[in-house]
Every structure is written in structure tokens, then in C-alpha cells.
């Protein structure tokens, strides 16, 4: 679409031929193609990931992703740790939205040990609050960050400042800025501090201002429109083929939201409707995320209004040092800012899990989908694509 807009018609005769199996036949020694490695050391790549691009001019004919630069072997390490020790380890699986991991570890262990009914109500509200705050800070990075990939830096400057305000609230509530370690099996680790809601409301007001400004800055911007419209289109058919979830699916018109489909915590008490779009391109995805930003602010307000003032924060659980969970397996999922985020958890009756497998949305978005979407795009659009799919490498390789 963008190419036709600029009146540019690529010469398809230069493209590599495909063989009988449908694979590209690229002969590098023919001097027709260039191999370019993008990342891992590259400021535009989110996280630490490499893409091996085969170029024809500046157009990509083949893209291969290379992950593993952030591999720490979490799933192996958690197998060596007690159930309660799993959550400080697991949250480091994704630095962009760590709270989701805490919740999943807690929910899986509670479900398998039969304590899920005993989690106090207050703890559930506080879990929801911290999850929504995590989504908010993720979106405050993500929405302006999309414009940042087209070299529009001012939104990033604002967004990072506002995200920092949310991190200050996190610090008050949980005791840490980024790795909160707040949701623990059985409940949470603290009540709201005095005056938290007022300070949060002040921050939310600032974010309201920002939301309006960002609309003028990004969505009514000639550069952004020209480059984002028509880039990286996801069709509704692709959603199931690739396992696309979250905002990426919703921007393609497929309404998938775990908070609505399989409500967890008290999400069915909140009044919201996940935003959708139909175009499925980078512009639509950013637009959906921007609307979700509005919605998340609203959800935080709803949660703060509906939650009780005081209450128990943790159920009485077995001694953490002796805690054993009977044999079983489960899959618990939640809606993170990037989409369905799930944990497959297997126990074998000992005091440590048998297997923990994280299913992050980036796993499919960042490898299979991204590789196919890179073809026929321009080098300059690679980062835009990557950010628009919200690829978070640490959750791919774990």
C-alpha cells in the first residue's frame, strides 16, 4: 500500500526463485543479494535479538530471527527451586511487564495445591491493581515507542516520564521499581499505603493529558500515517494460523481478550470492552493500544473505587519451606499488554515443580509471524514491525 502510494513498483524479476518445496533459492555469491545482521547490538531492536536479513537493494527477501541472547534457562532454574522461591525467579522472564509472571506462578501453585478458593478478596483486588498498573506502564512505553521507531522521539520522552511516575507508585505499593515481587502464592505482600489513591489519581490525570497530546502527535501525523498505514498487515485468517493473540489479534478484528473470555480475579466485575480495529496494520495496532491506554486508566480508577479499604492480604498457607503440591498439571493464562500470557505448570508431588513452561505472546509473534512479515518490507520498517508486534525477546527464550 505504501509502495503504491509513493508510486514505487519493485522489480519482482530480481526476486529469488522458489524451489519445489516453496523455499527460496538465494545464491549469495551471485552478488545480487546482501546479508545484513540487525542486532543484537542495535538501538532499534527491542531487547536483545538479532535478525539475519537477506536484502535485495534495501528490500528484504528473507528474514531469519535469532534469539537466545537473553537465555537464562528459567524453566530449568525454577525446577530447582521451592514453590515460593519460584516467583522472584520467574518475574525476570519478562522485564517489560514482570507482574504477569508473578501472578501466573501464584495462580498455578494455588490451583494445584487447592488454595485458590482461600485467597482473600483484598489480595485479589490488589493483584488486579498491580496487573493493570503493569499494563499501563507497558503501554506508556509501547504507544509512543511505536512512533519512536519512526524517529519521533518526543512521545518517548513524555511516555518514559509518565511511566516513571507509575513506577514510583509501584515502589510505594510493592517496594521495588521494576521487579516488584509483590504477588506471592496465597496473596500479596502489602496493603495500599496511606494516600496512595490520591497520588495515583494525580498521576492518572497527567496521563489523561498525555493521551490527548499523543493523539495529536502520533495519529494525526503525516509521517506516522504514511509509514504505518498498510505496513505489516495481519488478516483475521492469519490470527488462528499463527496463534496471534492480544492487541495484535484485536487490531485485525478478532476480539480475543482473556479478561473477557475466561475472567480471572475480579475482571468480570469491571466494566470494560476491549477495543478493536479492522485494518490489522501497524497503524491499527498502535491505535488499539492507544485506546487500551485510555481503558487501562479507566480500569485502574474502577479498581481503586471498587476495592475494599482493608482486608486480609494473604491466606494461611503451609510452611513455605515444607510446601509440597500433589501431582498435577495446569495451564493458567492472563491478558498481558501483549496478549495471552500463560504458564503450563506440572507438579510431581515433591516440593519443587516438575516442569514450568511459559507461553509468551512474543513466542509466536516474534519468530514465525515476524519472519514472514519481514519479507517484502524495507530495512527501515523492521523496527516498526518488531515494536508493533510487541516482541519481547526475553519471554521467547526465557
Amino acid at each position: 500500500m505504501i509502495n503504491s502510494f509513493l508510486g514505487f513498483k519493485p522489480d519482482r524479476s530480481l526476486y529469488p526463485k522458489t524451489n519445489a518445496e516453496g523455499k527460496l533459492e538465494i545464491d549469495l555469491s551471485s552478488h545480487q543479494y546482501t546479508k545484513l545482521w540487525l542486532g543484537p547490538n542495535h538501538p532499534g531492536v527491542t531487547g536483545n535479538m538479532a535478525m539475519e536479513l537477506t536484502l535485495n537493494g534495501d528490500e528484504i527477501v528473507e528474514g531469519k530471527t535469532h534469539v537466545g541472547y537473553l537465555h537464562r534457562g528459567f524453566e530449568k532454574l525454577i525446577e530447582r527451586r521451592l514453590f515460593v522461591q519460584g516467583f522472584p525467579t520467574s518475574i525476570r522472564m519478562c522485564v517489560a511487564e514482570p507482574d504477569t509472571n508473578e501472578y501466573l506462578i501464584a495462580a498455578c501453585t494455588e490451583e494445584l495445591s487447592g488454595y485458590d478458593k482461600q485467597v482473600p478478596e483484598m489480595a485479589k483486588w490488589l493483584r488486579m491493581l498491580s496487573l493493570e498498573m503493569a499494563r499501563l506502564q507497558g503501554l506508556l512505553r509501547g504507544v509512543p515507542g511505536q512512533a519512536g521507531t519512526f524517529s519521533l522521539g518526543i512521545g518517548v520522552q513524555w511516555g518514559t516520564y509518565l511511566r516513571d511516575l507509575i513506577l514510583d507508585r509501584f515502589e510505594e505499593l510493592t517496594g521495588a521499581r521494576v521487579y516488584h515481587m509483590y504477588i506471592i502464592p496465597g496473596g500479596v505482600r502489602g496493603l495500599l499505603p496511606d494516600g496512595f489513591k490520591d497520588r495515583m489519581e494525580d498521576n492518572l490525570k497527567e496521563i489523561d493529558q498525555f493521551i490527548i497530546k499523543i493523539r495529536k502527535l502520533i495519529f494525526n501525523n503525516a509521517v506516522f500515517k504514511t509509514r504505518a498505514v498498510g505496513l505489516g498487515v495481519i488478516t483475521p485468517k492469519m490470527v488462528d494460523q499463527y496463534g496471534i493473540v492480544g492487541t495484535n489479534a484485536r487490531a485485525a478484528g478478532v476480539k480475543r481478550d482473556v479478561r473477557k473470555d475466561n475472567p480471572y480475579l475480579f475482571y468480570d466485575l469491571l466494566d470494560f470492552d476491549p477495543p478493536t480495529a479492522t485494518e490489522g496494520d501497524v497503524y491499527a495496532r498502535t491505535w488499539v493500544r492507544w485506546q487500551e491506554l485510555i481503558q487501562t486508566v479507566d480500569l485502574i480508577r474502577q479498581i481503586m473505587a471498587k476495592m475494599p479499604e482493608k482486608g486480609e492480604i494473604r491466606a494461611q498457607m503451609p510452611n513455605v519451606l515444607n510446601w509440597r503440591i500433589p501431582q498435577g498439571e495446569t495451564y493458567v493464562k492472563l491478558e498481558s499488554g501483549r496478549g495471552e500470557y500463560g504458564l503450563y505448570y506440572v507438579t510431581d508431588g515433591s516440593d519443587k515443580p516438575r516442569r514450568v513452561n511459559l507461553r509468551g505472546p512474543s513466542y509466536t509473534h516474534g519468530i514465525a509471524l515476524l519472519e514472514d512479515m519481514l519479507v517484502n518490507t524495507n530495512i527501515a520498517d523492521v523496527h516498526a514491525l518488531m515494536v508493533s508486534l510487541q516482541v519481547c525477546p526475553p519471554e521467547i527464550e526465557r
Partner: protein
Amino acid sequence: MEHARLQLVNKLFNDRPKSYKYNLFQMKLLIDRLTQHYNLTDYKQQRHNLAFVTVDKQLSPDIITHLRDYEGFSHFVLLSCVDWIEDDKLQLTYLLNQPNHKYEIGVRVLIDRKNPEMVSLHKMWKQIWTYQRELHEAFGIIFPGSPRLEENFVLEGWTEKPHMLRDFDTKEYAERTYFPRPGRTSNDPATYMREKLYPNQPVTAKTNKND
């Protein structure tokens, strides 16, 4: 305010069981239909919207195709592997999601641990080859025909046994390879107190036995 909140909570507890029951009912019907066609060796209803079934290795491609094409499990969630080293088995779990009824089914397949091989399903969903590539690296499972199976996924230059197998000891490997900073020693309180306070006293009874 407090009253409104209580009303909300009540609404929740009144409404939820209905959707739970609906989900459960749908899942029961599904399992009934499946058992008519296939031989399920094990079935467990983990949650109202999540069940696990165990099927034979040969049957699994059939049943997964059936679930996708006839039961609407169009969303492939994940492919995972569990190492049951005691039974000498690897368990592959294909987790599928039904977006309309909003429930999930986990298809468990037990394969031989000594000679792990499984049919590749990369033609069915476009992201499965990634999982298969990861499992090949992490557990050494072979998926014949799966694209880029032999390529490195997360590791580079790995010469040990597949790293996710239970008998690969990561701590021992790390200590052997990565020079932990020396100079740390710790004491067990009970042992330390014994050495300090009553070093010569018997702690266990000796027995003189006829053999």
C-alpha cells in the same frame, strides 16, 4: 460505597457458577464425542475450562486434526514437553484452545525417552515449527521434516546433553564452567552448635549385631 461493593461481589458469585456449569457441560459433551471416535487412555478435568486427555502416539496427529477441523480448536496455544525420567518417558502436551466456547484441551502424548521421535505438525499451524525446534534443542526430540530443526535456537556451541532433560545438572555444570567467586563458606546451625557446645558427645546409637 461498601454496600455497592458487596452487591458487586454477590453478583459475581451468583453469576459465575452458571458460566462454569455451561463450560463444564460443553467439555463433557466434547469428551463424549471424542471417546466415540478415539481411544483416550486418560482424561482429567483440571478446571471447568481446561481438560487433559492422554492419547497414543500414533493417534495424536489424527485427534489434533479432528479437534482443529471438527471441534473448532483453531487456536494452538503451546507445545510443551515434560521429562518423566522415572518412567523413562517424555510427555508432549499439545494445548489447544476453542475460541467460541472458550475452553482448552491438553492432548498428552507419551513417547519413549531413549528414542524420542514425534510426527511433525508444522503444516497444521504456522508457529509449531518454532516449538519443535525448541524441543529438539531442549529435549533432543526429533520431528522429521520440521523446518530448521537442526538450527541453534537459544544456545550456541552446546556440547552437553539437551539442557532441559532432568538428568542434566545445571548447577554442577555452572560451577564447573563459570568460576563462581571463591571464599564463601556457610555453617549449619545445628552442626555448628554441636561442634561448639558438645563436640564429644554421642549423637547416634551404635548397635552390635549378628549378621
